[in-house]
């Protein structure tokens, strides 16, 4: 009768797991295998090349620059986005008239696709006659170059990514905040602790697991940023916004060098998992 007990799980699992294995695991494994081969244009043949692709990638100054850009981007954008969305979450927790409408409005950037967000902000940030510059002129700030300037391109992309992402992550913080038992706050009020150290001693410790989840998921999406470079900056002035994912896309589809691109993908995955690992250690480590 063992088969009877196994029938149900099998029936329930097969559709989804079959799909995941065929459409996700197989391509991932194929990608890893591809990264150990190379194609010769002269005799139109593919041959085993060991770690040559990885060596080529890690000695390519352009790819190294894209790793640097991606790391700088993540080191700035992740804490920034987490802080802002945490602040936004706190702000949206304050019960004032119109609180629900404010919460709904901050949902809008979630539904605006990254493609549309980049197109719109691209026009706004036009140095010659973008709306953003005319707004800045109101405050007496002269015209900025934004995406056309080596130093400002990456911050501009950070701005767009933050505009798009902050509302989404704030949702997680709001739900986490709502689940903190109110007795804790009442106890703190009795002890007379001001809003600031209530935040430090009660709110933040309670939110550790949500913060960890947001940081990890945000890091993953920020590592894979591709649309701004593809639509707006094409790698940005002097490679200042040349994200790894864009470099992989260029190698795979413009330079039709799929094997090199696959090795870059594996490197990207390894770096990403390392960073996520460090984050979970840092944030998760202090669990009681």
């Amino acid at each position, binding site marked *: 009768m063992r088969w009877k007990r196994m029938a149900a799980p099998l029936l329930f699992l097969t559709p989804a797991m079959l799909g995941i294995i065929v459409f996700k695991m197989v391509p991932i494994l194929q990608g890893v295998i591809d990264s150990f081969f*190379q*194609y*010769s*244009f*002269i005799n*139109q043949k593919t041959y085993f090349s060991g770690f040559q692709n990885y060596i080529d990638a890690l000695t*390519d*100054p*352009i790819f190294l620059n894209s790793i640097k850009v991606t790391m700088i981007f993540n080191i700035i954008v992740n804490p920034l986005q987490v802080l802002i969305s945490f602040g936004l979450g706190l702000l949206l927790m304050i019960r004032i008239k119109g609180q629900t409408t404010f919460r709904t409005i901050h949902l809008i950037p979630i539904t605006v696709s990254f493609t549309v967000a980049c197109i719109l902000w691209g026009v706004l940030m*036009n*140095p*010659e006659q973008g709306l953003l510059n005319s707004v800045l002129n109101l405050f007496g700030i002269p015209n900025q*170059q934004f995406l*056309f*300037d*080596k130093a400002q391109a990456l911050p501009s992309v950070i701005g767009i990514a933050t505009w798009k992402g902050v509302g989404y992550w704030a949702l997680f913080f709001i739900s986490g905040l709502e689940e903190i038992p109110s007795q804790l706050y009442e106890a703190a009020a009795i002890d007379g602790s001001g809003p600031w150290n209530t935040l430090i001693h009660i709110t933040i410790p309670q939110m550790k697991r949500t913060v960890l989840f947001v940081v990890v998921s945000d890091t993953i999406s920020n590592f894979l940023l591709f649309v701004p470079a593809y639509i707006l900056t*094409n*790698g940005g*002035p*002097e*490679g200042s916004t040349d994200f790894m994912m864009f470099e992989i896309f*260029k190698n795979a*589809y*413009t*330079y*039709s*060098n*799929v094997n090199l691109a696959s090795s870059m993908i594996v490197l990207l995955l390894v770096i990403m998992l390392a960073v996520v690992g460090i984050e979970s250690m840092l944030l998760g480590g202090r669990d009681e």
Partner: protein
Amino acid sequence: MKVNVESLPFDKMFEAIEVRLGAKEDSIDILLVDAPMVANYTAKGYLADLYSYVGEKSKGNITETSLGAGTIDGKLMALPLNSSTVNLYYNKEIFKEKGIEVPPENVDERWTWEKVVDVAKKLTYEKDGRQIYGLCFEQIGRPYQLLPLAQSLGAEEFVNKDGSKTEGYTNSEEMVKACQFYYDTFNTWNISPRISADDAVSYFTGGQVAMFIGGPWQIPSMTEAGMDFGIAPHPYFEGGEVVTPTGSWYVGVSNYSKNKEEAAKFVEFITTNDDACQMNYDIGKNLPCNIHVLEAIDNDSAYESFPDNSMKLAVYESINTAKARPQMAGYAEWQSVMEKTYSDIMNGSNPKEALDLAVAEIDKQLEKYKK
């Protein structure tokens, strides 16, 4: 027999070719090939050899140079749909407003770049809140438009003989001088707007640019915008050679197509048959490669009146001053890196350093064609 036309925007089309033919798909039978990409697509095995399908008489119908550019190592890989040239278009109102005499139309009195810059400085000013620019290139950042600057200064080759190394060629002394000129128009003299090639023509038709270095295919959008514009020959550097951009779109048959024979016959028809070329010219107004159509334009009086007389200028340039872009296996990589380099130079990078970086990256990409 049915021909399905699938239309993609400019850069998406390049990408689709790399993606689909890179994966050896048979969903494309016939494809457009940018002139310098013929060698690149041949090296990647994307194109079928048309030699056995196309008759001698048809090949005789088209100009020698354009047929040559479609032949790689003796194999006919693509046939020219049309050629192209670039002229200097100017906004008469802006010139009148500032009281400056317009550039002459006659090829013998062709303006030098130094003269153009001098005039452009006078025509860069602010007018009720909007900035007017003296000079604007149409295809900003694209080699098709900007290589002639270096060629006019004497640059001959951009890559070595076997197309494997660009060191010393793409960052040659003439190329650095030309890029310094390009850098100055944006950063030193501030006579050109820092915009993308997509917005260039709408700047000119919007009345924000005095002199526009563009192609005759833009005339319809100028007339539509009701502009009062004139045409003058493409400038050259003082004491240098007169060089204008050329080469346009070729048509090739995909190496993975299931019906190469029919596809080749179709390509032969639209690129060499006289009536087809005449009809193509009448609609598209692009400079033809068919000899009979070119002759018809030369001695047909209908092309005296403005703006069609630009075609006479186009024919003159294509015969006397046109210089094609370099033919090499790695042109796709070369063009992609050069576009990025030109855009960096526009945004303020030092030309010499930018070109040296570009050459390093290109040569690394070209290695894969040697293995």
